[in-house]
C-alpha cells in the first residue's frame, strides 16, 4: 500500500500548511504577484513578436524576399554615404538574374495632400505595377497601375484603405485630389493591411513611379526596392550577387563601403522588435527581481513556520525521522506552494493579457511555454529559498520535547 503511504505523507504536509492559513496566503500571494507579472511581460513580448511576424508575412516579406534601401550604414541609424546612386539600371540588372522573381522599386516622400476642405501632409510612394504582387497588396475598389500609366507618367493615384476617410471623401474613385501642387485622378483604393506602432500602412497614397520621379519629386534615383526570389533560392548567395552588381554599378571598389543596405526579413524582425525587446528585457529583469523578493518573503515565512512547528519537528526527529526526511518534508511543502501559485499566476496573467488586449493591439497569446515558465520559475524560487529554512529545521534538538528538567 505504497499509495496509502504517500497519501498520508502528503496529507500531513497539506494539513501542516493549512494549519497556518495566514502564513500560507502570504506565501501564495508573494509568488502569485511576481509570477503574474513575469508571465504577462513574457506573453506581451511573445505576442508583439508574433504580430510583427504576421504583419510581415501579410506583406509578402517572408523568407524569399529582400529589401534594398539606398544609402549605406548600419541597419538602424543614419546613412553615412550618398543616397542618390540607386538607379533604374540597377533594377533592370537585378531583374535579369535567373533566381529573381520580380523587383518592385519605389521612391517616397511626404507631400501636402488637399481635397476639398482637407489639407494635410501625407506619405506618398511612387511605385510600379509589380508593387501589388511584391507586397501581396491589391485594390479593393477600382484598379491598380498599369504599364501604360507608367509609360505615360499618368497623373493617377491609388489610396490606402484609410485615406478616403481621412480626407473625408466618399465615392472618391474618379475624383481628383491635389498632391504637392498637381492634380491626380483616384483610380483605386487598396485593401486594408494590419500594421503596428506608428507605421500606418493604410495611410499612404501611391502614384506611378515615373510620375513620382519626373513630375513630383524631380529625381532620377530610387529610394528602395523590394526583391522577391524564386523558391529555394540560396538567400546568402543571392545577397552577395546583388551586392556585387550594385557595387559595380555604383563604382564602388576595394574598401569603399556599400552605399545601400540589404535587408532580409530576419533583420526587419530584429529591427521591429529591438525596441520592444529592450523594454521586455528590462521588465523581465524587474520581475525576476520581484521573484527574488518573493523568494525572500517565502524564506521568512518558512522560517516562521518552522519556528512555530519546532515541537512537531522535534517529535518527528524523536520518532526516527532523518534530516533528509525533514528536508524532504519541507521541500515538498515548498513545491506544493510553488505549484499552486505557479498555476494561479499563469491563469491570472492570461486574464491580464485579455484585459490588455482591450486597450492595445496586442492579442492574448495562449502558450504552454508560459505555463511551464510559470511553474518552473515558481518551483525554482521556492526550492532555492526553502532550502535554508528546511536545513535549519533539521538542526532542531529533539531533546526540547522533554522539558520537565
Amino acid at each position, binding site marked *: 500500500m505504497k499509495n496509502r*503511504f504517500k497519501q498520508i505523507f502528503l496529507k*500531513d504536509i497539506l494539513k501542516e500548511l493549512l494549519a497556518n492559513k495566514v502564513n500560507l496566503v502570504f506565501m501564495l500571494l508573494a509568488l502569485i504577484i511576481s509570477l503574474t507579472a513575469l508571465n504577462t511581460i513574457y506573453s506581451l513580448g511573445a505576442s508583439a513578436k508574433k504580430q510583427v511576424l504576421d504583419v510581415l508575412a501579410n506583406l509578402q516579406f517572408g523568407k524569399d524576399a529582400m529589401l534594398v534601401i539606398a544609402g549605406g550604414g548600419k541597419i538602424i541609424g543614419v546613412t553615412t554615404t550618398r543616397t542618390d546612386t540607386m538607379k533604374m539600371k540597377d533594377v533592370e540588372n537585378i531583374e535579369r538574374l535567373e533566381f529573381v522573381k520580380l523587383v518592385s522599386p519605389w521612391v517616397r516622400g511626404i507631400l501636402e495632400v488637399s481635397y476639398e476642405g482637407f489639407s494635410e501632409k501625407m506619405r506618398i510612394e511612387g511605385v510600379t505595377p509589380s508593387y501589388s504582387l511584391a507586397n501581396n497588396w491589391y485594390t479593393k475598389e477600382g484598379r491598380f497601375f498599369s504599364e501604360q500609366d507608367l509609360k505615360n507618367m499618368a497623373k493617377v493615384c491609388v489610396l490606402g484603405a484609410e485615406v478616403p476617410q481621412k480626407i473625408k471623401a466618399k465615392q472618391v474613385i474618379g475624383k481628383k485630389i491635389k498632391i504637392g501642387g498637381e492634380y491626380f485622378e483616384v483610380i483605386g483604393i487598396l485593401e486594408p493591411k494590419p500594421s503596428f506602432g506608428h507605421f500606418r500602412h493604410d495611410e499612404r497614397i501611391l502614384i506611378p513611379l515615373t510620375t513620382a520621379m519626373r513630375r513630383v519629386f524631380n529625381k532620377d534615383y530610387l529610394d528602395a526596392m523590394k526583391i522577391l526570389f524564386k523558391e529555394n533560392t540560396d538567400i546568402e548567395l543571392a545577397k552577395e550577387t546583388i551586392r556585387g552588381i550594385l557595387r559595380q554599378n555604383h563604382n564602388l571598389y576595394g574598401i569603399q563601403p556599400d552605399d545601400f543596405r540589404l535587408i532580409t526579413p530576419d533583420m526587419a524582425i530584429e529591427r521591429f522588435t529591438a525596441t520592444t525587446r529592450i523594454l521586455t528585457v528590462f521588465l523581465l529583469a524587474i520581475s525576476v527581481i520581484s521573484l527574488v523578493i518573493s523568494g525572500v518573503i517565502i524564506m521568512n515565512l518558512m522560517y516562521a513556520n518552522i519556528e512555530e512547528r519546532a515541537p512537531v519537528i522535534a517529535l518527528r526527529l524523536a520518532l*526516527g525521522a*532523518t*534530516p533528509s526526511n525533514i528536508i524532504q518534508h519541507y521541500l515538498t511543502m515548498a513545491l506544493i506552494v510553488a505549484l499552486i501559485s505557479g498555476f494561479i499566476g499563469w491563469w491570472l496573467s492570461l486574464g491580464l493579457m485579455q484585459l490588455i488586449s482591450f486597450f492595445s493591439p496586442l492579442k492574448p497569446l495562449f502558450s504552454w511555454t508560459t505555463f511551464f515558465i510559470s511553474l518552473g520559475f515558481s518551483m525554482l524560487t521556492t526550492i532555492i529559498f526553502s532550502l535554508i529554512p528546511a536545513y535549519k529545521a533539521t538542526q532542531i534538538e529533539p*531533546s526540547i*520535547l522533554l522539558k520537565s528538567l
Partner: protein
Amino acid sequence: MGDKIVILEDIQKIYQIGKVSYQVLKGIDLEVEQGEFLVIMGTSGSGKTTLLNIIGLLDKPTSGRYFLEGEEVSKFDSKKLAYIRNRKLGFIFQAFHLVPWATALENVLLPLLYRPEGFSKDDEKRAISLLERLGLGERIHAKPKELSGGQQQRVAIARALITNPKLLLADEPTGNLDSASSKEVMNIFKELNAEGLTIIMVTHDPEIAKNGKRIKVIADGIFVDEKQV
C-alpha cells in the same frame, strides 16, 4: 551482557552556557535488564530528564559509554541514531506531543512514515487494533484537541507501540493528567511490562514511582539510592 538492554558506563553531561559550565550528570552507571520496569526518580534539576534524553538518543553524553542491546550507540552518527530511535525506542512525553492536525490514527502511524519501506495495510490494521485495545476504538479519526488528556496520552502510547519497540521511555507520563487518567496510564504500563516490554520511566512523584519494579533516585547528577518494589 545477553539480556541487559541498556548499559551506561560513567556517563557525564556538561552544558556550556556562555562562560559558565554546568555538570548535569556526574558519572552515571546503569544497567537495565530485559523486561524491567525502572523508575528514575528525582526532583527538578536533578538531571533525570537529561539522563532520559541520553538513554533515548535525543542527546549525546559529554563523556562515557552507552550500549543499547550490545551496540555502542554513543558512537553512532545522527542518521544511525534516527534509525535506532525509529526501530527500537518508543517515547511517551508529559505533554503528549501529538501532531495537532493529524487524527489519532494518523498520529499512531507517524513513526512508520520515516521508514523507507513505508507501511502496509496490516500496519494500519495494527494501529487500529492498538487504539481499540487502549479503549479508543471509537475515536480513531478524532483530532487531538477533541480528546481528553488521558485519551491523548493513550494515543501517544499507541504511537510508541506501533514500531514494536524494545524499550519504552516515558518522561513524566502522568504529569498533565488527573488522578483517574494517571491510574489508567499506569495500569497500561504495568500490563505492557507484564507482556515483557522494558520500560524506563522518569518522574518526581513518589506515588507514580511505586508502579515500577525498581526505583533509582537521582540527585544532583548522580544516583543516590536504589530500591526494589
